[in-house]
């Protein structure tokens, strides 16, 4: 039996003055996953996150988090969530320690020393122990983001929701955020939105792509990176390949060849309908032409950026 989803939305819709910011979103996030939520600016990512947190109300549709309705049981939902906003704001007169203590006290009654040790532990984890008692108003952007991550995890949440967690961080900060996310997945589910596709490809196991408020893809990352255009093999060749090109194109399991000239050679992207036959036979067919030299042969690996651009641009053309 499949585990109960951490986040489940059904036709979740949000409109502002008649304009749909989110259109009938159906989403499922499974436990202990790192779920990357992608989309261009204005796609509806932050709106979705705010709906889950009860900060905005759905126009129609429904959603549950850990089985709790996001409208009726919003307090129960928020008890199990840690949230980092895109542009986190805190009370400037408080120090980092006071901010974490204030956050922790929403979740825990006490005892006081246990709350203090949780706060201390969190300050160590996010590297703010030496600045713990300084007012936040003197903090840099990176320090604020670290504090944001700290306050989002001070309650050891079952679900961590991060809205663009690495957007304002330098490479070191980004690396630390990804490390924290990977560490937290042992006990929590991480749902995060980002523009940094490289990070998504590195840590996420499931990805959803949103465009103009519509979900245009939701799949495990491997499935998404395999591409939607079937299996493609990539060859780099030298020499006149025109005769071989025609011969290969006529093979029954080859559906298309895209040829591009680059430098002294030619690059072929061969789309095939039968991966196993292609793995066994394709290179042999090409090498049968002794005038050709094959310098590279591999199954094409898509980058998330390519997939993302294809899907978003395809969706834009279609809409």
């Amino acid at each position, binding site marked *: 039996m499949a585990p109960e989803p951490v986040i489940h939305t059904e036709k979740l819709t949000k409109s502002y003055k008649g304009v749909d910011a989110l259109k009938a979103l159906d989403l499922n996030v499974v436990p202990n996953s790192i779920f990357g939520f992608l989309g261009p600016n204005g796609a509806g990512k932050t709106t979705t996150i*705010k709906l889950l*947190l*009860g*900060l*905005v*109300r759905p126009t129609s549709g429904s959603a549950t988090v850990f089985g709790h309705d996001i409208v009726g049981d919003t*307090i*129960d939902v*928020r*008890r199990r*969530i840690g*949230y980092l*906003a895109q*542009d*986190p*704001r*805190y*009370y400037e*007169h*408080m120090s980092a320690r*006071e901010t974490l203590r*204030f*956050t922790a*006290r*929403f*979740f*825990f*009654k*006490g*005892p006081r*020393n*246990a*709350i203090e*040790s*949780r706060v201390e*532990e*969190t300050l160590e*984890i996010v590297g703010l122990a030496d600045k713990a008692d300084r007012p936040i108003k003197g903090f840099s952007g990176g320090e604020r983001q670290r504090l944001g991550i700290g306050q989002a*995890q001070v309650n*050891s949440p079952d679900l961590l929701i991060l809205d663009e967690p690495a957007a304002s961080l330098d490479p070191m900060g980004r690396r630390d955020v990804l490390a924290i996310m990977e560490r937290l997945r042992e006990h929590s589910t991480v749902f995060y939105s980002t523009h940094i596709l490289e990070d998504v490809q590195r840590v996420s196991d499931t990805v959803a792509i949103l465009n103009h408020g519509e979900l245009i893809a939701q799949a495990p990352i491997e499935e998404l990176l395999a591409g939607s255009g079937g299996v493609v093999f990539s060859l780099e060749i030298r020499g006149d390949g025109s005769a071989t090109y025609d011969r290969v194109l006529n093979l029954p399991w080859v559906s298309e060849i895209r040829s591009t000239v680059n430098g002294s050679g030619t690059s072929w992207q061969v789309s095939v309908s039968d991966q196993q036959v292609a793995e066994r036979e394709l290179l042999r067919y090409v090498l049968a032409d002794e005038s050709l030299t094959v310098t590279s042969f591999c199954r094409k690996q898509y980058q998330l950026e390519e997939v993302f651009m294809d899907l978003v641009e395809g969706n834009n053309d279609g809409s």
Partner: protein
Amino acid sequence: MAASVPLEVHTGTGWFVGFGNMVYKEWGSWWRTRRSLTHLILWLFVINGLMFLVGVDERGSNPPIDVLEELIEVFIRAGGLFATIGVVVATQSAVFGEKQLGTAGWVLSKPVSRPAFLLSKFLVNGFSFVFLAVVVPTVVFYLQVIHHALIQPEFVSFTLGLLLHIEHLLFYLALTLMAGTFFNGRGAVSGAAIGFLFAGLILPNALPSLAPLLPWVLHPLASGVALQQELPDRVWLSVVMTLFWTLLCLLVALWRFEREEF
């Protein structure tokens, strides 16, 4: 992240989820910053400074009882007017400021109810402002009265007058918080509350039959009670109605704030 000592988790639901923690935060914004000291100095300077000037002016030629009445009248009327404007200015951004800065959105992403967020502001701002702009200046005023008039005000009447003054202030606090849930600018929030205050200087004369039903007459009544003057028949109606309007403002604020999106 395993804590060595087990933490007790909050489990409650309803209006007061997170209320204690919000009170702790609001309290800190007054008493763990320079805000309380600033208000203390401001109100001592404005109210007790004014009373000092009035006392010096009155002391020479008038009998002590007249000096006493003049001081109490000015203390409650003028001091009260300044304090009412003060409570509006001091709390005008309590709600809309947090909406604009994004701190409300952050706090409300935690397990805290919206009524707890709003009511903690009413409780702590009300207590802190009343303490700094009414209680402390009153204690100093008492000493000033003894110094200038050489006699003490009648304690019970004076305290009852002050309680009416405090009720009047709390109404304006509730009105300001309510305006903060509707508007997103200082001008609009304080304009609504101070506009209502100044309307009260004109409209009760134009509509005398409605006057006891509205909060405006409570302030003149406060000085009347403090001075043991003869009071209109339906004093209690103004007291009850001001309490009613205060509660209504809070309920409307809660209703509006529940619908707010962050």
